[in-house]
């Protein structure tokens, strides 16, 4: 920036510290379930309760997911990594130390590319990524003025990602989080749900103010309690304004005052200074003697790289371009994870129009997965079979109504669509003579509809036509070619009543 302008006489400098929970079945050091929302203190055992004499054993999947994330964030992977104890007392931390990583994190010095407003990209540096255990939850109860401790979350695997202060606007901070979420969801590392706390974010922010031809850095403030991406953006925007006003008022520079922590107050849309701790924190880190180090071999890295393959940002663009589906659909498919996107591609390759594949994936398939609580890997219908079914709609062999019936049966029995269609006689009736005869028969038997058609106008008249189509469908057990029926019904109504459709 050559000269300062009236509008923004400063540059905003933002660094983020992001915690994401890993998608493992069990906790980091014990076999208890790693799941949000279960009744309090039901996913606990002597190990995560920190009972006397228990020992941690590292969850291999957690370490693999952590490696996957770090590789995808272009990090250097340490060949030798170890864990350390971070000692502090808090009732949600049963051992009163957290097993974390201090001087030898498993990865460091990476970056994530994010899209910029002008259509380009920008690299946000990653200082380090490390694997640690989460704490439990402390809830403030009214009754008796006591606080409640729930340890279901205690000991679940957590990835800490620390960025460089490379973001220069609230929008960039938000974009970074969106891109990070896309990446980690796609790689099935984390579901990154801020509401459920599986992605948590603190920010460090200050300003570089242009003042008398010099750049002056204002004190860095740590902002906490941001519970959505929108909140991060809003808090950063608020904090930048507030810091500039404070600078104008006090002229305080970086290093002149102790680091302040402020909490974002969602309702009032302001940041509020948090009470300073009574004692200076002294975490007394030392090597965790109950765990052994991990030496990362070239083979482990190769395995992780092969699991990652194409990155989500690239895949999103490729899906839209290669299959001609809307960008929104491509984004959602990729966000639902690599396996979901793989399924989509196999499915779409068997179809005339890949848009039908994205429609089915995002509606019927997704609805079924949600209802059954399945992942796409657990979905019993293979993509070739689903393509077989949907291609029959494209070839006008069956209609959509019948296809849904077949789809439901395929999920239940796993049988081929062809066999189900043959057995249930669901082949589409598209013989014009045959359908015309049915239309005539129906109108003969229902003279009242002709009167209604004549009497009613506009939308209501069209509804009468819809009612007749319904009768035809019922007569054909839903098998009739819907487009053909519509034309025939409209023609017959107009011919018999002499009034136009519109």
């Amino acid at each position, binding site marked *: 920036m050559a000269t300062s302008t009236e509008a923004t006489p400063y540059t905003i400098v933002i660094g983020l510290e992001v915690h994401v929970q890993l998608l493992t079945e069990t906790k980091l050091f014990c076999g208890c379930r790693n799941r949000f929302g279960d009744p309090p203190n039901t996913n606990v055992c*002597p190990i995560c*309760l*920190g*009972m*006397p*004499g*228990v*020992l*941690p*054993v*590292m969850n291999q999947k957690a370490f693999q997911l952590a490696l996957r994330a770090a590789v995808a964030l272009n990090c250097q992977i340490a060949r030798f990594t170890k864990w350390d*104890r971070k*000692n502090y*007392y808090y*009732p949600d931390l*049963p*051992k*009163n*130390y957290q097993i974390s990583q201090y001087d030898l994190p498993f990865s460091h010095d990476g970056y994530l590319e994010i899209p910029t407003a002008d259509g380009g990209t920008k690299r946000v540096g990653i200082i380090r990524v490390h694997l640690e255990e989460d704490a439990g939850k402390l809830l403030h109860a009214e009754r008796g003025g006591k*606080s409640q*401790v729930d*340890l279901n979350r205690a000991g679940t695997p957590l990835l800490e990602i620390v960025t460089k202060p490379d973001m220069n606007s609230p929008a960039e901070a938000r974009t970074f989080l969106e891109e990070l979420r896309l990446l980690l969801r796609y790689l099935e590392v984390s579901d990154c749900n801020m509401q459920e706390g599986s992605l948590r974010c603190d920010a460090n922010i200050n300003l570089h103010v242009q003042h008398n031809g010099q750049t002056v850095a204002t004190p860095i403030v740590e902002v906490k309690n941001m519970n959505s991406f929108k909140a991060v953006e809003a808090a950063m925007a608020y904090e930048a304004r507030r810091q500039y006003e404070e600078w104008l008022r006090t002229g305080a520079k970086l290093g002149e005052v102790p680091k302040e922590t402020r909490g974002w107050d969602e309702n009032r849309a302001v940041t509020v200074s948090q009470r300073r701790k*009574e004692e200076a924190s*002294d975490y*007394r*880190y*030392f090597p965790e*003697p*109950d*765990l*052994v180090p991990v030496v990362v071999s070239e083979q482990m890295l190769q395995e992780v790289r092969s699991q990652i393959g194409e990155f989500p940002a690239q895949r999103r663009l490729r899906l839209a371009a290669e299959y001609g589906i809307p960008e929104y659909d491509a984004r959602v498919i990729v966000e639902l994870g690599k396996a979901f996107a793989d399924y989509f591609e196999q499915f779409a390759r068997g179809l005339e129009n890949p848009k039908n594949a994205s429609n089915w994936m995002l509606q019927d398939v997704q609805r079924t997965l949600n209802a059954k609580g399945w992942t796409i890997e657990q979905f019993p219908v293979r993509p070739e079979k689903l393509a077989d079914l949907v291609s029959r709609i494209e070839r006008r062999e069956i209609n959509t109504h019948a296809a849904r019936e077949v789809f439901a049966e395929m999920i239940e029995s796993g049988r081929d669509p062809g066999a189900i269609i043959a057995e249930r006689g669901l082949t589409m009736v598209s013989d014009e003579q045959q359908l015309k005869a049915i239309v005539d028969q129906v109108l003969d038997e229902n003279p009242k509809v002709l009167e209604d058609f004549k009497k009613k106008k506009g939308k209501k008249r069209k509804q009468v036509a819809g009612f007749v189509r319904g009768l035809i469908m019922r007569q054909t057990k839903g098998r009739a070619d819907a487009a053909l029926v519509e034309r025939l019904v409209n023609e017959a109504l107009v011919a018999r009543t002499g009034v136009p459709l519109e």
Partner: protein
Amino acid sequence: MSGESLVGRTALEHLDALAKGELSARELVQAYLERIERFDGHVQAFLLVDADGAVKKAAEVDERRARGEPLGPLAGVPVAVKDVLCTEGQRTTCASRILENFIPPYDATVVRKLKEADAVLIGKTNMDEFAMGSSTENSAFQVTRNPWDLTRAPGGSSGGSAAAVAACFAPLAIGSDTGGSIRQPAALCGVVGLKPTYGRVSRYGLVAFASSLDQIGPFAFDVRDTALLLKVIAGHDPLDSTSVARSVPDYLACVEEPLEGLKVGVVREWLSEGVDPEVATAVRDAVAVYEKLGADVCDISLPHSKYGIPAYYIVAPAEASSNLARYDGVHYGYRAARYEDMIDMYCRTRAEGFGAEVKRRIMLGTYALSAGYYDAYYLKALKVRRVIREDFDRAFEQVDVIIGPTSPTPAFRLGERLADPLSMYLSDIYTVTANLAGIAGISLPCGFTQDGLPIGLQILAPPFEEERLLRAARMYERETEWHRRRADLQQAVAAVSKAG
């Protein structure tokens, strides 16, 4: 066979008699329970005697034997367990107020293995609180006495287990050794005690004192019983990341085989200054036995061993300060009755729940790890630890085993070292280095003082060479009779009441 003639025999003798049908497991456990009933009021080795559980287990063993079912290698043999190992559904206190009412919902892996071996778990033994001490006087509940002289300490921290064997309350016992807590009380009580290589025995369920030093090990009257018990408790455990996946040799099967051309190193520094003359003489006599057996004996030097105690008193308290942070009155254990707020609740709970020695070590460890002192103390101690380990590595290039005294003195008088923590710490001067280096060590009886107090011989072997250690120890034991002596409790009790 009368009860009194049963107790004092070895586990292998009991197993033989049980197998031959000469007695039942019930009769055996009854004999020990009667002995405990009669004398433990004087010795105070046990914090808990599980008479009902022991009798029930013995009866089960008898029934299964009668039905011809297969039985474990310790079927029907009473074993006493230091109260630092968690026992499911049974109070586990670590001799601390803070765990006075703690009932673990899990067994330590070693306890599970003992149960699977069909051992009869007869009770939980007294110890220094959280295994911190060398006299068992730091128990919050009672003072254990040395069965050879009830006015003296049994050593510690596994003093309850050592005294239980020496008093013939059980032929076998389990202890834990962080700086000498098995070997030193074994020496002072005239029994055999073995500290396995770090990683040889699972630590799961062993209430941690200093995690990188702690190991569980056996007590017995002789080397053969020690081999038997070690075989049962050793081995890899998926619940302990630091337990090593190596097969466990059949220690008992090979223990009688002498080691051809054994090279024995005698630690020069350990027989010069600071050692009691009677202890030094007994150890020199033991060296002579090895020479007579044809061993190649030479002097070796462990030049940094004198830094063992200072390094240990940084590393162990540092780890302990973190390991003991969990005793905070939130999830289990003692909570202070009155407090002002959360922090005050922590501070009062811990002040009221811990004894003086535990507090001292927590303070020392917290200080050693705190900002500004970490490099000067903790990091420095870890570097010295490596230097000490390298001393051993060099020594074991020259010799097969290292021998020396276990403890600089025989059993000292109760209360004698309580006022001066440092004098107590120096009791472990010959034992701590094995823990720092992670190697295996054993203490076995090698004589008695004029006053009739036992003296222990320490033998050390490289990591995972327990087989060599036991065979070397057995070579000596076969030539001597010390392991056959038993404390005369009746006389010991009479001596005290006469003096009192």
